[in-house]
């Protein structure tokens, strides 16, 4: 039995979701290899080799892999999958983009966004925005799985796996990378942050969002998140969206400001350890999941909170 884990990285650094996916792989059992596919990603492969329990790290490099083209990942991973019983990918936007392509090419049903491993063939996954948990059993010889990183503990450091280069197959010609605009921020990354401060529609404008949410996040050393309503209204970039179709987070502390708590938003944050809600509507559904609720207008409550934090 052997499992291949596709590393999550930005060509420069390895993301924590890789460690969490390795831990899901270890729950399935067998040897665990990590595939680092990117460009100039040697440092990422070195970092992956230090994850405890990893047998070996495979490093494949090409321009198209560095750009994240799903077709390039398909060409690389489908032949590699012959050596493995399962291929696990973190359920990030990129993982969701490429993994179903690999499953279809291998003619297997993808098991999406698992939050639990019951045994090597049985998995738990959320459906209906996390309002139900489905336990599914696969009879397929090869499994293609995406893993919800927040549901698993990160595998520890302390390994010393070897790094082996594998050739990246020829690039697909039918799709080309044009450019990307990534949000640059000195704050921690939303998906893995210990504290998240999120703003909702009540903020009313992008200026207000920046003026209220960002200083509080900086004071707490937190990442910034937003509800779908705030993103749709243009108060915050798409990358901030927490929810069923955005990012799923499970920080130590989640602070929801001016967020009513639609089911779709709760789906993305209800596994946080401690939830704080500040909303002037005492009946807002967010209070049903909040450990600490403050019924107040954010306009007065956030400055007071800043002052109380010192």
């Amino acid at each position, binding site marked *: 039995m052997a499992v291949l884990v596709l590393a999550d990285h930005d060509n420069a650094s390895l993301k924590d979701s890789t460690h969490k996916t390795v831990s899901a792989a270890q729950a399935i059992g067998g040897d665990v290899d990590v595939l680092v596919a990117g460009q100039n990603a040697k440092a990422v492969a070195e970092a992956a080799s230090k994850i405890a329990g990893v047998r070996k790290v495979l490093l494949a490099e090409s321009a198209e892999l560095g750009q994240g083209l799903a077709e390039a990942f398909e060409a690389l991973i489908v032949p590699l999958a012959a050596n493995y019983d399962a291929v696990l990918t973190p359920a990030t936007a990129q993982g969701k983009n490429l993994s179903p392509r690999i499953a*279809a090419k291998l003619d297997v049903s993808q098991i999406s966004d698992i939050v639990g491993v019951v045994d090597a063939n049985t998995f738990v996954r959320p459906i209906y925005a996390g309002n139900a948990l489905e336990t599914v059993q696969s009879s397929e010889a090869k499994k293609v799985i995406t893993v919800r990183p927040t549901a698993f503990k990160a595998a520890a450091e302390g390994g010393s796996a070897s790094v082996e280069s594998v050739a990246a197959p020829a690039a697909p010609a039918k799709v080309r990378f044009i450019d990307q605009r990534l949000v640059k921020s000195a704050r921690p990354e939303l998906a893995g942050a210990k504290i998240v401060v999120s703003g909702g529609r009540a903020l009313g404008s992008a200026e207000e969002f920046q003026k209220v949410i960002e200083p509080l996040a900086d004071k707490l050393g937190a990442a910034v998140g937003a509800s779908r309503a705030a993103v749709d209204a243009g108060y915050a970039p798409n990358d901030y969206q927490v929810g069923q179709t955005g990012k799923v987070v499970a920080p130590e502390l989640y602070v929801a400001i001016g967020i009513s708590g639609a089911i779709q938003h709760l789906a993305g944050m209800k596994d946080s350890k401690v939830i704080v809600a500040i909303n002037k509507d005492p009946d807002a559904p967010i209070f049903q999941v909040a450990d600490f609720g403050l019924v107040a207008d954010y306009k007065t409550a956030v400055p007071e909170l800043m002052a109380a934090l010192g």
Partner: protein
Amino acid sequence: MKVLVPVKRVIDYNVKVRVKPDQTGVDLANVKMSMNPFDEISVEEAVRLKEKGVATEVVVVSVGPTQAQETLRTALAMGADRAILVDAGAQDLEPLAVAKALKAVVGEESPEVVVIGKQAIDGDNNAVGQMLAALLDWPQATFASEVEIAGGKAKVTREVDGGLQTLEADLPAVITVDLRLNEPRYASLPNIMKAKKKPLDVKPLDSLGVDAAPRLKVLKVAEPPKRAGGVKVESAADLVTKLKTEAGVL
């Protein structure tokens, strides 16, 4: 240029989902069903492509139960030209089976672009578009927030980890749509009436000759653990004290 838009009939996104007491699934009896919200966005995008003169025909297709005809009629009322129901009866299909059925429909219809919602809000798999692209060996552009089609190419801005990315794909291609692409229109009453007269072909899933057998066995569907309700605090200062002492997270 012909555009094919797959749509799915799902539980309405405003409905509170209830798990059946016997844990065999989610209770769908007497529950409001609607078009998957992401598919409304893909129908809207296709109709806009036609209004701009980029597309000549918008064909909507659903692989699902007989009642999905209602969903298709909604798409026709939004402005699609004709509809195809691949009738799967009461069979619950996995994304791979849906992708295989859609591949067969693509073979018959030869669209130049398939525009499809990035995920359905029931299964939350986020898989059919990518699987269809793989089975067809077409390029894919997922999670689109902006689409421009010209000269046999699609330029697509995508919502990715960390921001936005722009790709250019040669047609034919599969585009999966995200929330920010557009705001779907409501069908007007005259258009709902007109939609009743638009063609809607029904073909049984069996007639496509695809392997739709489930690969996964659902052992149970359970409610997630409930979060215990918390407490209300009186002030911001009180909140900070509780976070420091009771919760220990600051």
